[in-house]
């Protein structure tokens, strides 16, 4: 495809007073001079200030990934301590209070501080590269989203370190979470931390959505989006709808606890079940939000190693959206035992069983892709293809719990513990480990070690299954979840020992993986631009990519931009050599929502420390709320207000003083 006519860009806004962005952008090729000019424009200043102020999506993405992996390690250590306590019956390594805080903190850490942020990290890093764009739509908001995530994580873990971590499980049922039964600061740390973290999730989601609608390279119509884009975009739309529900729930709980409101308090006419509805209206779609992008990683990664396009792109893309739509209608399956009327249970049960249909589409697509391809067995391929098996195991156990009468027995037993770990490790951790192997060369410019990669895969895979496959049986034998110990005569000792052994093997697998990551960063083989001979746009730029990502904005004519010749695509070719130059400052291209026609030139913001200061101000504000100290909260609020004023102060360089126009 030839680059789009420049006149069309200028023409859209004829008559505007600002010649700078209304100009006709030059079309050209990438030259050393251009690259040097762009480097000067886009690079982050060296030094501490530059490090703190950067708004580069790649830097932010890496920070997300590193922080989330740190949380994974912390959550993993918590899990190992619990597994030691449970290795045999009637052990007293942990007091019940310690155990209850550990299992709650483990859940909160993994579900809120690892699974979602790790995907945000990869998406942040990859989206503009997959789109042929120079950055996310709102780079400063992107930085804010990371800093708030970090601050909220520190806030919640501050509670853990002073012995006031969450201790009522991650879904935090009332009235146990009320002040009367849980008077420490534990639940206050958790409640405020979740509201705080919700800001990060929400602004991140808004940023992904606008980026999706505006920042794609010319020609990247929605039927040419990689599946990971479908996954993250779907998750982001969902997050905007569901995070308010959980933030509200935690806010009301905090009011109940600290200001004696009665939203969930029975004596004042409150309803414990209101909490459960608000939480699971968020909680269940959230489960899909933390697996759909990871399923996208598999859908985009597998074809590269199977040396053929994904079988059934359109069904898989639509199944992603369908899963989420159905996912909004199944939250009551967490509440089957609460005494709701049978008719509503039947509806939610049927929906929960039938949600297997869109999931099955992805599974069959992946199998067909391997079957009809020529799989090359790399470590990344092993992680991606094992996801299929783990996903199916997690899927069928979900199918069993979807049936109300079966769920009345299965719920709150180790069967559910097994189920949720197959879902979260199988469809989040394993794809993420595969994605790390896959995109590591792009991110660092070096390959991860294949041999060590295989060792870490097999150790992780075997350890995981030894730990969690028997847990199905532990559950069917009646072991309730969230117990700090169990009696000898339950017959559950040996099988728990097996799980504990498996969990340590799993931990060794993770250890090997992290050793590989750390070693390969400096000692790995140099990768080159496209070491896997992959097909999407990120592989057309250098490894690691320059700060501006692409010297010229590519023009896209198919879904497999780098495979067009080999696949014998019948029509036009993508043009990666020649395109808009956009070098009059920090500029990016906006395109139309569906067809990705060029629309206007965007001026992107410079690096700024304001997002960091805003997150810090919010941390002070939330700390003041936690200890109910008005001066501290006031100072925090003032910092936030000052930051927002500075943030929104109109800047001519960003055309924020231009006349209003469409």
């Amino acid at each position, binding site marked *: 495809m030839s680059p789009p006519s420049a006149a069309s860009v200028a023409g859209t806004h004829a008559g505007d007073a600002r010649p700078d962005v209304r100009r006709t952008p030059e079309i050209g090729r990438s030259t050393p001079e251009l690259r040097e000019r762009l480097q000067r424009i886009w690079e982050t200043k060296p030094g501490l200030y530059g490090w703190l102020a950067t708004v580069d999506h790649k830097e932010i993405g890496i920070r997300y990934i590193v922080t989330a992996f740190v949380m994974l390690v912390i959550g993993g250590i918590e899990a190992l301590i619990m597994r030691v306590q449970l290795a045999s019956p009637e052990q007293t390594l942990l007091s*019940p209070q310690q155990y*209850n805080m550990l299992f709650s903190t483990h859940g909160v850490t993994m579900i809120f501080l690892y699974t979602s942020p790790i995907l945000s990290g990869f998406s942040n890093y990859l989206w503009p590269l997959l789109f042929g764009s120079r950055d996310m739509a709102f780079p400063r908001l992107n930085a804010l989203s990371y800093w708030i995530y970090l601050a909220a994580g520190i806030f919640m873990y501050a509670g853990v370190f002073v012995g006031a971590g969450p201790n*009522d499980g991650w879904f935090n*049922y009332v*009235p*146990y979470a009320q002040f009367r*039964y*849980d008077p420490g600061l534990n639940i206050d740390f958790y409640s405020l931390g979740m509201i705080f973290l919700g800001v990060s999730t929400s602004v991140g989601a808004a940023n992904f959505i606008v980026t999706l609608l505006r920042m794609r390279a010319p020609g990247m119509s929605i039927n040419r989006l990689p599946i990971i884009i479908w996954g993250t975009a779907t998750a982001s739309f969902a997050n905007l709808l569901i995070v308010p529900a959980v933030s509200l729930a935690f806010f009301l709980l905090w009011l109940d606890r600290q200001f004696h409101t009665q939203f969930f308090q*029975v004596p004042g006419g*409150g309803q*414990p*079940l209101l909490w459960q509805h608000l939480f699971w209206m968020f909680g269940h779609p959230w489960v899909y939000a933390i697996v759909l992008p990871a399923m996208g990683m598999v859908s985009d990664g597998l074809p590269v190693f199977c*040396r053929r396009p994904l*079988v*059934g792109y359109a*069904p898989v893309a639509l199944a992603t959206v369908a899963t989420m739509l159905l996912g909004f209608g199944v939250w009551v399956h967490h509440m089957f035992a*609460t*005494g709701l009327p*049978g008719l509503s249970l039947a509806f939610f*049960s*049927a929906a929960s*069983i*039938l949600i297997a*249909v869109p999931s099955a*589409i992805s*599974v*069959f697509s992946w*199998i*067909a892709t391997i*079957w009809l391809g*020529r*799989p*090359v*067995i790399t470590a990344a391929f092993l992680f991606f*293809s094992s996801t299929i*098996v783990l996903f*199916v195991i997690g899927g*069928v156990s979900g*199918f*069993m719990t979807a*049936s*109300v*009468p*079966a769920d*009345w*027995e299965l*719920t*709150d037993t180790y069967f559910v513990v097994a189920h949720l770990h197959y879902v979260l490790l199988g469809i989040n951790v394993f794809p993420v480990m595969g994605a790390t192997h896959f995109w590591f060369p792009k991110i660092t410019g070096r390959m991860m070690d294949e041999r060590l990669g295989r060792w870490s895969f097999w150790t992780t895979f075997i350890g995981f299954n030894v730990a969690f496959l028997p847990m199905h049986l532990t559950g*069917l*034998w*009646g072991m*309730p979840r*969230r117990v*700090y110990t169990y*009696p000898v*005569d*339950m017959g559950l000792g040996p099988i728990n020992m097996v799980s504990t052994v498996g969990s340590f093997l799993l931990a060794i697998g993770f250890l090997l993986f992290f050793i590989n990551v750390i070693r390969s960063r400096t000692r790995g083989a140099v990768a080159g631009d496209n*070491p896997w001979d992959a097909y999407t746009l990120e592989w057309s730029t250098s490894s690691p990519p320059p700060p501006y990502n692409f010297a010229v904005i590519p023009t896209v004519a198919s879904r497999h931009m780098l495979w067009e010749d080999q*696949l*014998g695509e019948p029509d036009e070719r993508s043009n990666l050599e020649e395109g808009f130059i956009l070098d009059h400052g920090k500029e990016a291209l906006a395109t139309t929502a569906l067809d990705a026609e060029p629309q206007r030139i965007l001026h992107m913001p410079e690096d700024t420390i304001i997002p960091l200061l805003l997150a810090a101000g919010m941390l002070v504000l939330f700390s003041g709320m936690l200890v109910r100290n008005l001066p501290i909260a006031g100072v925090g609020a003032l910092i936030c207000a000052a930051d927002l004023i500075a943030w929104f102060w109109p800047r001519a360089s960003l055309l924020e003083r231009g006349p209003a126009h469409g």
Partner: protein
Amino acid sequence: MHPLGYLSGSGAQTASVVPLMWFMLIVSILVCVIITGLVLWAVLTKRTAVGHRSLRKIALEHSEGVNWIWIGLAISIVPLLVSVFWTVAVLAKTGTVPPAPLTIDITAKRWWWDAQYRDGVTGGEFRVANEIHIPVGRPVLLHLRSADVIHSFWVPKLAGKTDVIPGQVNAMWLEADAPGRYRGQCGEFCGAQHAHMAFFVIADPPQQFAAWERQQMLPASTPASAEATAGLAFFNQRCGRCHSVRGTPAHGSFGPDLTHLMSRETIAAGMLQNNPASLSGWVENAQTVKPGALMPNQQISGPDLTVLRAYLETLR
């Protein structure tokens, strides 16, 4: 072997649930085996030994293979639909309480279970803790209340869970087909001693149940020995604020009713065998046995403990 296992059951509820459970379990295992087999087979037969750099892509029609997705879906949807209809059928069957049930009021407390029986004819009533007797072959309707936080009533061999939620009365029914001691367990996390919030449903043949009921209806007998009498006085002064013994001034309702304590096989919510040694140990050191339990350690001197135990042993 596994007192809480629910792949087999002995109740009218489990009679319809267990087959559904097995059906779904077998379907699930088959699906896992088939999918794993397909993946393994595909990888092993199609793998290429060549290093990835030297590979060429295969030019293929994009739509090739999509039919496999639809075939897979068509096959999958059969067991899914069977499960949906089977589920709804079991729901309909277990959803209605059979006629003429025995009604028992259960109150869940941290971390034990209170059961109140009423005689419909005489209006007499009594309470027991953690050991709930029922007659074999007769449906039993349970009204579930919570005194504090959410718990879940679960006797896996007889029926699934029903949550016990403050502010609402949930109802469930169960029926035992065979006599036996069926272990139950709180199913919803409820705090420090959730792990030890066990109980038993004891299914007796009807005559035996009737005899038990008559016995439980009686107030505690007046102790005969001097030692036990001293123990009663000590009990009233020391324990009566939390515990009840019908026929004495002790009428606290915070802890279990102890009127016929010695008729129970276990104490401390199914945790300890009910014998003199564990009874003394529990009274003196409840916090060591169940850290966080609401029964405080009693600093009782040797002679007081001896008379107290002598009295408790009269509560037959």
